[in-house]
């Protein structure tokens, strides 16, 4: 899970793994690791999810966390326009260092649609490089399961 701070990475994971949402903002320090087994038709895939600390910019505080990464979910908060810039920066950085890894784009906080300030500048580029784009809400659970399942399906192929 990658993206700048307070975009909802941890909340998305908690919603997906534990079906819990908290309004209280709690920053992630370092990395939190979770596992969830996804059943896809006849097979099951183990998703090991690394929820990585989001910094204030488009940097990744500790690149060692990305070692062994198979794919990633890039999260942005459309109520804060600069989170798109940071997500684009991060995506480029990952491509430079790790090659063209698969990623899914999560436009989170779909429940706050009236507060969205995102413009299409840069968004289309990120969308076009992504396996899929989901408008998610960690609060209501909208598209959360679908997003992780779509990534698991891709990883299984």
């Amino acid at each position, binding site marked *: 899970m990658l993206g700048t701070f307070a975009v909802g990475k941890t909340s998305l994971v908690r919603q997906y793994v534990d079906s819990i949402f908290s309004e209280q903002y709690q920053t*992630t*320090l370092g990395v939190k*690791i979770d596992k969830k087994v996804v059943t896809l038709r006849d097979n099951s895939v183990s998703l090991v999810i690394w929820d990585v600390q989001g910094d204030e910019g488009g940097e990744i505080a*500790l690149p060692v966390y990305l070692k*062994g990464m198979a794919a990633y979910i890039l999260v942005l908060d459309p*109520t804060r326009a600069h989170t798109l810039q940071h997500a684009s920066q991060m995506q480029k950085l990952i491509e430079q260092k790790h090659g063209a890894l698969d990623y899914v784009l999560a436009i989170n906080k779909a429940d706050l649609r009236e507060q969205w300030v995102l413009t299409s500048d840069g968004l289309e580029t990120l969308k076009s490089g992504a396996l899929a784009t989901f408008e998610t809400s960690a609060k209501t659970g909208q598209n959360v399961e679908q997003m992780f399942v779509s990534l698991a399906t891709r990883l299984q192929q």
Partner: protein
Amino acid sequence: MTPVLPTPVLAFVEGLSSANSPAYLQVNARHNLVSLGGALARYSLDTLTIGDSVTQQFPMLEGVLEQNQQQLHFERVQLLRAQYASVDVFVADGSVWVLLTDTTMRSQMEQQVQQRRLGRTFRRQDLGLKN
């Protein structure tokens, strides 16, 4: 010649080491657990089974063991709620050694500092949007 440490210094060093709750896992080339020891209960790793796949039992190592790098250091890994560890991975003599040390106290302090800093930034950005 090995230096002999004065009793209070030795007690301090021993105290420091036990406070850090060191633990280790030894993993073979097929990623099965060969041996283990130390304060594993601290990380809820005390029920691991020797001979079984280590990545099945300790998912954090999935993808990490394949790196086959001489040494990897993972700082501030939250293994359980509100509990942090440093995880070091060494490749030596045909085995992978995974060493864990508890960094909870230091990490919790860092987390609080970061919470305040990012909370302030978040509020500033929020105000900026509204003004």
